């Protein structure tokens, strides 16, 4: 049917879409409006006559300034960034090689191994941090970035491997066979032919790995204790909530600034990451 009734389009498309968009974006709006709202408005009684919870007439950058000057927030950003980048690179490297091997090389139990790698991804960090804490303590890595750089790959490598394994399988195997006949070694064919074609998949694995480690909370909470060593998610929560006092303005400013890099990375690579997840390369 070509001509749909107009109300159907509203009921099945526009209205659900609007609800969904508002539901998704409202927390960000709330975060933003709280970050720029002066304290006087923030801590005003809900029932006050001039209360306007959804907007403000006196926007201020005071919370952001406090966050940057009075807390260790710049350290947190740097720590998070450093840890996320290094652990993403390590995981991507391992995931690329493992994913390629599982997708292409013929060896016994390859399929089972692929599945079991994914299963390890499903072990919840809330269980895994107990044995990992023991290991970190034995190596005396507690309260250093290396504690996280070593533990994040425990879930990032399975994730990257699995995603890239799927992507490599969509690339015709004749391509590298042809490259091998053309004069490349297996490794050469992988580097020169398969990896360049897999760039969308590699990018999306990288983006997701970066986001996962940027947002990671449990391990960061357990393994880091000094205020200036913390990452953004942990630092914001542990340093800006003192006892039962919530520094809402700074909290939200911290959350806002903390999500900016991730948002930037996403928007930059969004097209790649979509094709990466949907796969398929056609000659």
């Amino acid at each position, binding site marked *: 049917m070509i001509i749909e009734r107009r109300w159907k389009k509203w009921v099945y498309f526009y209205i659900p879409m609007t609800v969904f968009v508002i539901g998704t974006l409202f927390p960000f709006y709330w975060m933003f409006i709280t970050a720029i709202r002066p304290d006087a408005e923030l801590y005003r009684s809900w029932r006050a006559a001039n209360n306007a919870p959804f907007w403000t007439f006196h926007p201020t950058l005071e919370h952001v300034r406090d966050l940057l000057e009075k807390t260790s927030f710049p350290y947190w950003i740097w720590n998070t960034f450093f840890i996320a980048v290094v652990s993403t690179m390590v995981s991507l490297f391992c995931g690329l090689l493992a994913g390629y091997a599982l997708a292409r090389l013929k060896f016994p139990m390859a399929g089972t191994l692929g599945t079991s790698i994914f299963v390890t991804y499903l072990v919840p960090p809330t269980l895994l941090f107990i044995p990992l804490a023991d290991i970190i303590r034995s190596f005396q890595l507690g309260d250093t970035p290396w504690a996280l750089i070593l533990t994040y790959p425990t879930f990032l490598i399975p994730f990257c491997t699995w995603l890239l394994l799927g992507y490599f399988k969509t690339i015709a195997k*004749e391509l590298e*066979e*042809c490259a091998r*006949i*053309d004069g*490349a070694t297996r490794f*050469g064919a992988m580097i020169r032919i398969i990896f360049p*074609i897999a760039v969308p998949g590699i990018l999306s694995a990288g983006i997701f790995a970066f986001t996962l480690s940027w947002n990671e909370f449990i391990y960061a909470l357990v393994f880091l204790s000094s205020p200036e060593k913390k990452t953004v998610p942990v630092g914001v929560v542990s340093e800006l909530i003192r006892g039962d006092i919530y520094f809402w303005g700074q909290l939200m400013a911290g959350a806002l600034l903390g999500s900016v890099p991730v948002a930037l990375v996403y928007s930059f690579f969004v097209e790649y990451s979509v094709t990466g997840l949907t796969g398929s390369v056609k*000659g």
Partner: protein
Amino acid sequence: MAQVMLKDLNKKYDEVHAVKDVNLHIRDKEFVVLVGPSGCGKSTTLRMVAGLEEITGGEIHIGDRMVNDLPPKDRDIAMVFQNYALYPHMTVYDNMAFGLKMRKFPKNEIEQRVRDAAQLLGIQELLKRKPRQLSGGQRQRVAVGRAIVRHPQVFLFDEPLSNLDAKLRVQMRVELKRLHDRLETTAIYVTHDQVEAMTLGDRVVVMKDGWIQQVGEPMELYSRPANKFVAGFIGSPAMNFVDVTINDAGGSITAETQGLRLTVPPAKAATLRAYKGQGVTLGVRPEDVHVATAADPAPYSFDTTVDVVEPLGSEILLDVRAGSATLVARVEPTVRVKVHESVRLAVNADRLHFFDVKNEHAI
């Protein structure tokens, strides 16, 4: 330029014995086609020559080297794949130059060779494009071009035309043949299409279930098939097979079934006499059956009823029944018959084939 020798070649996967004792000598500059139904081992054989599959048993020689343990890149071969396998992230030029770059050819020679090949194939204008901007036929040419720039000892083709539409396939077939005449390089070509096999091959190798059934020049396979499988596989429409009993009717040997009685031509009578009283399979090609005229001798003609009439323009295919036997006849387009009518047909006596019922070998 080199000959290729396959000696007792075998390939076993876990449970499947894909290629069985293949022995084949491909002469220098020869164009050999491996043909057979899917799963017959033809592609596996080709991939073993390429070095893409490990060899379970036997030897492969290219030129005067045994290549069993050489990686693909050291075998000096080029291969064209069914899906062309063009590198999607490279331009046509880079696709064609890749093999030469890997072999560290000087830049000006690479350029020269790519331009020459592009000119030969008429794809000079496409050199800067990416594969995704090309049509199926153009991709095919690029894939062939990528193979020929290397001047390899042997070309391997793995069903290169099967992704093209029918018209383009015929056109590329002619071009490939012309190209081979010009380049004079040994070529091994795999296809499941017997027409391609017959038209392209200097010699054709028919395979089934991992065994070579017959090796021969195209017309030899057509006129003297070694067994029932080859007889049925080569030629279109396929050869008619009728189960008959051999009888000795007062000196002349006859092949009979209910409603059909043909005299065995004298050339074959001697050998078939040994089958007296036994069943054999009679094979006759549709093009060797025609509408009987007064000139046709009675022992080679018989009455039939028409089941289906398929006019093709240049000819008419008649599906007919003769007693319990069903046959397809390829008759002149001028023949006027209707369904359910009876028509008297005759066979070309010297083109009758007989096959043993048990081992299916030609008698």
